[in-house]
């Protein structure tokens, strides 16, 4: 039971809003000490895993210079202008389409998209542009909500398409696990059974996108109403 101290440290640290890096470090040190590791040993573990997992940070570091360059020359503004010309677009529809593209492409083994490479420079501005094309300027709060949903569209599309493709991490990991326990489970069967949840995920995204569109519409009429009354 005492091994769970790290979970407690993380929960308490997040709740008290301490710096997350420090909370994580403290949780690792507490857990390691309780499991009988020395401080030096814990630092060694941190160092080893930190270096092993550099691949998580690598794409962001390499992509931001070119994205920054293109944004300097108006990429976000272009994405916004581009979407304004399409009729019948709403932020929800832009995001739902992106989720679908992401799910289908990753199910076929093609990993396009990403938060740094697609969401920030293209998808979020398009969703915002779709909202502005309909309602003009929007309150900052609703802009933030639209952006948060753009990140959600990326995550949902990414997570719930991936398991349908057999040659990626998740299915191979499951296969490897079953082999280690002596069970022979077909990768095709596991991939097939990822499909129902993929459809559910798309339906859930459709529901959230519809709600997002309604929220944007409501916020827009409220601001317009407030302006009409000459309010603050």
């Amino acid at each position, binding site marked *: 039971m005492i091994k*769970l101290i*790290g979970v407690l440290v*993380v929960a308490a640290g*997040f709740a008290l809003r301490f710096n*997350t*890096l*420090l909370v*994580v470090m403290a949780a690792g040190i507490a*857990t390691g000490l309780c499991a009988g590791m020395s401080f*030096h040993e814990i630092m060694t*573990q941190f*160092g*080893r*895993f*930190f*270096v092993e*997992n*550099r*691949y*998580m*940070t*690598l794409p962001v570091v*390499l992509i*931001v*210079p*070119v994205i*920054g*360059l293109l*944004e*300097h*020359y*108006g990429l976000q*503004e*272009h994405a916004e202008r581009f979407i304004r010309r399409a009729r019948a677009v709403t932020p929800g529809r832009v995001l739902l389409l992106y989720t679908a593209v992401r799910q289908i492409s990753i199910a076929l083994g093609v*990993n*396009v*998209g990403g*938060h740094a*490479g697609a969401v*920030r*420079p*293209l998808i979020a501005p398009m969703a915002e542009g779709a909202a502005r094309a309909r309602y003009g300027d929007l309150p900052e709060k609703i802009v933030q909500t639209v*952006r*948060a949903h753009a*990140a*959600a569209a990326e*995550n*949902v599309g*990414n997570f*719930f398409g991936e*398991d349908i493709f057999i040659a990626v991490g998740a299915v191979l990991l*499951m296969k490897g*696990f079953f082999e280690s326990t002596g069970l022979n*489970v077909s990768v095709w069967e596991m991939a097939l*059974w*990822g499909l129902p*949840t993929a459809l*559910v995920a798309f339906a859930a*995204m459709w529901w*959230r996108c519809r709600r997002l569109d309604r929220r944007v519409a409501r916020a827009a009429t409220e601001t317009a109403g407030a302006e009409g009354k000459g309010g603050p």
Partner: protein
Amino acid sequence: MKLVTLEAFYAIAGVVLLLVAGRIAMDASHPKRWGSAAFWALLAVTFLLGNVIPPVVVGYLVLAMAVLAAAQQVGRPTEQGVPRAERVAHEERLRHRLLWPALLIPATAVAGTLLLGKVHFGGVRLVDSKQVTLIALSLGALVALGAGLRLTRAPVHTPLTEGSRLLQTIGWALVLPQMLAALGGIFARAGVGEVIAQIVASALPTQHAFVAVLAYCAGMALFTIVMGNAFAAFAVITGGIGLPFIVRMHGGNPAIMAAIGMLAGYCGTLLTPMAANFNIVPAMLLELKDRHAVIKAQAPIAAAIFIANVLLMYFCVYRF
């Protein structure tokens, strides 16, 4: 043998980070000049020399980075990006051509993933087939940078200036995914997962087929929330709850259990700040005021998918 490894791209990223640190050190108007410069320089060292210096030294460097961040010595610069009017003026000149470099990133990544792994000269492979996706993506970023520079005729320091600004927008949260992966590793070594699996298994009446499914799915989601990673949860929870109760006790189908169980774990990923690369870093990248805004947007989706997963598994796992 492989000709190109990820190590080469880590070195390039290290140089980028070192240049970011250098820019900050030269910027007298930076509110947290020396702390920030030190933070990015330390990170650069782990990218440039990560495999050369001993892990224990990296561990202490990481500790130093955490202390700098906690002491609020890592901050954003005062300099702003170019004004909107200027960006719009450029946009009116370049129009659709602006999209090409942005699309080159995924295009190169896909083509590279499909082709690079197959290239070999006798016994010498061009790239390691395990690293091919990341190498292709990194290559895509560099190719796109070249195309972007050609298109905009921007001076070479522009991508550095803009990239540096974007990286500082993300700030110390950039290394959070790596830190959490390290914490996950320490949790795994200490056996935290086994304890959680035991608690769930002993606290619930798993002799009921539905409770077994619920315990497995909830275990996957909860442990993923704690670890930030469904892959880490899978072996522990499937070994501790799934196999003994769903498969052995109730005769469920392991393929259905695993496929849907992993996806129940992903619902946990949507909910946890521990999955920083999916939930926290994007919030910083999109300049959201609330760093948990992405999680809040995802919470209803995760809840809906989770419930559907439990029902799907219950109705299918014992039937097929």
